[in-house]
């Protein structure tokens, strides 16, 4: 009898613990916002992001505010960078399954000083992005990043550290791609295959603007960092492209997502226009 009572008590405690975990994950999820907010006053810009990847969200808002071209690259997150994201109903139906996680980021605020010239590629852009990354690294959110300039008008926030310590950014992987006329998407696939073969990570294309990646170019490189080849590709299309190279820890896999670099117009009819690749 007492064994049954203990067993029932243990079961109730277990279920409660599981529910608390699920509720905690869901409460955090509802606090997320779709888009980082930006306020510009007295020569300073305030950014507020709330997302599993708040640096990515903050960079997106800033680049769309000023028409910048900025890429983002996750580090390979470790267990301490993750939080349970398993759906409660799914968990009840699959009590013994492993479950799933997400990056454990959340709220992030930064206040940055503007320069007179905030145009794409300017020192003003570099200064704001540098300070943004520094503030992020001090915020306690997952991952550590550094800012790199890939070309005169292209920057990248590169993940260089995770809960497990320093990491080698995956796009630092040195690869060789023959310089031949191909569509952008064909070259991207070759690059990702080469990265995968050398790094050991599964890597694939995620999302992207289709007809833009169907345009052709003659781009490759001999023993060059993958980032350098991708940067040339993303700068060779009619519309400037930016990428988000995102890591899924549950599958130990990277997805290469492309987006058209856009700038806000302030016009309610046509609020966003693409950034030309000049």
């Amino acid at each position, binding site marked *: 009898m007492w064994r049954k009572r203990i067993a029932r008590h243990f079961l109730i405690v277990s279920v409660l613990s599981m529910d608390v975990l699920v509720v905690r994950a869901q409460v955090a999820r509802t606090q997320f916002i779709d888009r980082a907010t930006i306020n510009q006053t007295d020569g300073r810009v305030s950014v507020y992001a709330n997302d599993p990847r708040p640096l990515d969200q903050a960079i997106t808002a800033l680049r769309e505010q000023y028409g910048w071209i900025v890429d983002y690259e996750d580090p390979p997150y470790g267990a301490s960078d993750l939080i349970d994201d398993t759906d409660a109903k799914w968990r009840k139906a699959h009590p013994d399954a492993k479950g799933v996680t997400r990056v454990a980021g959340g709220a992030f605020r930064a206040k940055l000083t503007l320069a007179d010239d905030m145009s794409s590629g300017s020192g003003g852009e570099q200064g704001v992005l540098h300070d943004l990354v520094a503030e992020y690294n001090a915020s306690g959110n997952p991952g550590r990043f550094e800012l790199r300039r890939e070309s005169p008008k292209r920057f990248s926030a590169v993940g260089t550290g995770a809960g497990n310590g320093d990491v080698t950014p995956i796009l630092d992987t040195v690869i060789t791609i023959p310089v031949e006329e191909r569509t952008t998407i064909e070259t991207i696939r070759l690059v990702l295959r080469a990265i995968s073969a050398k790094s050991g990570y599964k890597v694939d294309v995620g999302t992207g603007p*289709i007809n833009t990646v169907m345009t052709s170019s003659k781009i490759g490189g001999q023993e060059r960092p993958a980032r350098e080849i991708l940067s040339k590709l993303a700068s060779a299309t009619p519309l400037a492209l930016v990428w988000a190279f995102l890591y899924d820890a549950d599958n130990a896999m990277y997805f290469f997502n492309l987006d058209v670099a856009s700038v806000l117009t302030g016009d309610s009819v046509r609020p966003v226009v693409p950034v030309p690749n000049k």
Partner: protein
Amino acid sequence: MFVKWDEHMSYRRHRVPPLQRTQGRGTHSRIIGEETKTEGRATRQYPQVKGSSWTVAGGDVAGNHNYWGYDNVGYLSSTGPAYIRSNGPAHGVSIPCTQTLYQNMFMYCNGANPTNYINDTLTITVNQGTSVTNCRAGVCSTINGY
């Protein structure tokens, strides 16, 4: 008399990963793309609107009026839909799941400000099994093997 057309497609933060149910919308939030070769169009678009004599004069010069916008309907590879099917339910994303994109076409009359001429709703649905259904203005096609 109209003199210029322009196109804009709402395209924001549709990526993988993560599969993230966003505030009860019940759709996956980050996945997108269209394998253009499935429509027999693996190369640069012919600079004319299909079925008309309208020439897209702006060509590929981004930022010009009357230029080809970008098309995001569908998937760049079958990995994305497969990822959604295998990982989505545990994140609370039910299959089939549909993503909705909004597209506008603008009309410029004699140099005046743009007028929103027409709105279009695009949907991309990851089905059970190995197919994806894309719909433009209510006209749908299902692509198998995705």
